[in-house]
C-alpha cells in the first residue's frame, strides 16, 4: 500500500516554482531519503505532505488529504522540522504530560525509557537544554508515538558527530520495524547512506532520480581507473569523470562489475557523488535542449 502518493504536485511562491508537477510514490515500510540542493523544493514537498502548506495537484498521505485533514493525519504521522521547535518555556515533564494527554498513540513509559538513557531530567526546561538534548527530547517523544509515517527534515542539523551517530542508531534499532515509513531529508548524505532503503533526488521542484538502495548498489559503480585503461574505460560511456589526486575517477551506470574490475579499483559511489553526477547530467541535457 502506498503511504504517500502525489501526482502533479505544484506550488509556487510568486514567480518562483517550488514544486513543478512533482510525482511521488512512497510505499509503506520504506526509509526514503529525499536529497536535493538548497531551494530544490525539499521542505516545500514535506510541508505539503504534512498539511502545512496548500498546493495544487493531487496528494494522498495514508489515505488522507493532508491540507484539509491535518489534525486527523497527525494521529498517524510524526514530524521533526529542521531545527528544534520545542517551545523554550516547556518543561520536560510538561512535554510528556501534554503529548500523553493529546496523542492517542503515545506510550509515556516508552518515552520515559528513552529519556532515562540521556542526561535530561523531568524538571529541565527546554531553554536549559543543549541543542543535542532538545533533539533527544523531541526524538524520545516521537519514538514513543506509534505512528505509521515519520518525517524528518534535516533532523541532525547543528548536532555534533556523537549525537548524529546516536540519532540514526536509535532510529533504526528502536523505531523502525518494516511497517513504518520514514521520510528524511538531509545534507549529511554520507550518514544516511547505510540507513536508507530508497533514494530520491529532487531538483528545481522535480524528482530527477529515484531508485532503491539494492539497485543503487548493483547498478552504480565508481572506478579509480588505471591510466593505461583510461581510453577503454571512457569507451564504456561513464556518467561522469573527475580527477582525484591526479587520477581519473569514473562513475558508471548499468555496467557489470566484472566488466569494470580490470579497469581499476571498483566501489559503490557515495550518494553525494552520484547526486552531483545526476545533476550535472540534467544540466547538460537542459543546455543541449536549449541550444537545439
Amino acid at each position, binding site marked *: 500500500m502506498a503511504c504517500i502518493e502525489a501526482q502533479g504536485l505544484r506550488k509556487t511562491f510568486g514567480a518562483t516554482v517550488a514544486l513543478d508537477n512533482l510525482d511521488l510514490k512512497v510505499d509503506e515500510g520504506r526509509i526514503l531519503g529525499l536529497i536535493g540542493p538548497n531551494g530544490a523544493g525539499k521542505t516545500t514537498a514535506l*510541508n505539503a505532505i*504534512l*498539511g*502545512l*502548506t*496548500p498546493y495544487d495537484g493531487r496528494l494522498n498521505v495514508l489515505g488522507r488529504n493532508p*491540507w484539509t485533514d*491535518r*489534525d*486527523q*493525519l*497527525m*494521529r*498517524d504521522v*510524526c*514530524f*521533526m*522540522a529542521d*531545527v528544534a*521547535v*520545542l*517551545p*523554550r*518555556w*516547556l*518543561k520536560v515533564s*510538561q512535554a510528556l504530560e*501534554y*503529548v500523553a*494527554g*493529546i*496523542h*492517542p*498513540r*503515545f*506510550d509515556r513509559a516508552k518515552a520515559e525509557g528513552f529519556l532515562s538513557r540521556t542526561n535530561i531530567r523531568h524538571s529541565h526546561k527546554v531553554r536549559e537544554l543543549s541543542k543535542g538534548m532538545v533533539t533527544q527530547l*523531541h526524538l524520545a517523544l516521537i519514538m514513543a508515538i*506509534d505512528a*505509521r509515517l515519520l518525517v524528518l527534515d534535516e533532523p541532525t542539523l547543528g548536532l555534533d558527530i556523537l549525537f548524529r551517530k546516536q540519532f540514526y542508531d536509535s532510529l533504526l534499532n528502536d523505531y523502525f520495524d518494516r*511497517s513504518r515509513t520514514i521520510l528524511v531529508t538531509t545534507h549529511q548524505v554520507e550518514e544516511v547512506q547505510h540507513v536508507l532503503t530508497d533514494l530520491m533526488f529532487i531538483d528545481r521542484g522535480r524528482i530527477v532520480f529515484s531508485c532503491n538502495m539494492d539497485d543503487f548498489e548493483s547498478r552504480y559503480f565508481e572506478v579509480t581507473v588505471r591510466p593505461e585503461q583510461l581510453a577503454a574505460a571512457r569507451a564504456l560511456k561513464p556518467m561522469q569523470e573527475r580527477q582525484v589526486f591526479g587520477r581519473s575517477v569514473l562513475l558508471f551506470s548499468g555496467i557489470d562489475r566484472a566488466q569494470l574490475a580490470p579497469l581499476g579499483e571498483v566501489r559503490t559511489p557515495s550518494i553525494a557523488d552520484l547526486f552531483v553526477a545526476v545533476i550535472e547530467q540534467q544540466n547538460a541535457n537542459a543546455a543541449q535542449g536549449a541550444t537545439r
Partner: protein
Amino acid sequence: MNTQSTAIPESRIASQVSASVAPDPMRLLFWSVRRELWENRALYIAPLAVAVLFLAGFLVSLVRYPAKMRAIQALAPMQQRDAIAQPYEFAAMLMMGVLFVIAIFYSIDAFQGERRDRSILFWKSMPVSDLTTVLSKAAIPIVVVPALTFVFTIAMQWIMLMFSSLVLLTSGISPSTLWTQLQWIPMSFMLLYHLVTGHMLWYAPIYCWLLLVSAWARRAAILWAFVPMMAIGVIEKLVFNTSYFGGFVENRVAGGADIVESSVRGLAQLSPMTHITPGRFLENPGLWGGLLFGGLFLAAAARIRRYRGPM
C-alpha cells in the same frame, strides 16, 4: 492505549486501523487550555504580585482603622456603607484592571508568539485542529481571566475582611458595623454577575478581534489591532463629520455596564435583586451582534492559522 495491540499482536495493520479512533474533542481542548496556562504564567503571577502589594499596603493602613471606624460609626448608614466598602471595591477594580490588561496582551500575542519561536511546527505536529487551538486560546481571556479575577478578588476581600475584623477586635471595637454594612455575599454575587455579563460576554468580541489580528498579522499585531479602528473614526469624522464608529467602539469598551446594571454606583451599593437588569442585557442586540462577530472572528482565525508557519 495498547489494548488493541495486545489483543491482536500479530496483525499490526489491523490494530492500526482500529486504533485510529478520534481523541475526545473535549480532552484535546482541555490539554490545549492547560498548555496555555503553562506558557502564560503571567496570567496568575502578575495579579498575585499586585494583590500581595495591595494587601501589604492595606495591612499597613489598618493601623489607623480603629480610629477610622469610630468616625464611620458616627455617619448615616448610607455613608457608612460607602466608606466601608470603598477599599473592597478598589481591590475588585484593581484585579479587573490588571487582568484586563493581561488579557489584551495575551490575545495580541497568542498566535504571533508560536510563529515567532517556531513552536507552531511542534503544535501542528500534534493531532489538534486549528479550531481547537483557536478555541483554547479564546478560552483564556473569555473564561479563564474572568474566573481568575473572581477568585483573586474574593480571596483578597476575605483577607481584608479578616484582618480588619482582627484589628477592630484587638482595639475593643465590635466588627458588627463592618460585617452588616459590607454585605459581602451580595457584593460577591454582584462581582460574579458583572464579570459574566461584562468581562465575559460583552468583551468577548474584543478578544476575538485581537486573536484574529494576532493570527493574521505578520508583525506589529498591536498596530493592526488598533490603528484601523482609529483610522475609521478619523475618516468618518473628516468625511461625514460624525462619530458613530467612535461611539460604537467606546460603547463596546466601556458601555456594557449601563445595560448590565441600572445604575452603577459601585458594586457594593447595589442590591442584586433590584439593580441588576439581566433581562435588558439579554435583550440587547449589541450583545448578540457582538457574540456573532466574535464567532466569525474566531472562525476566520482558525482558517488563517492553517496557512501560517514560522515567521
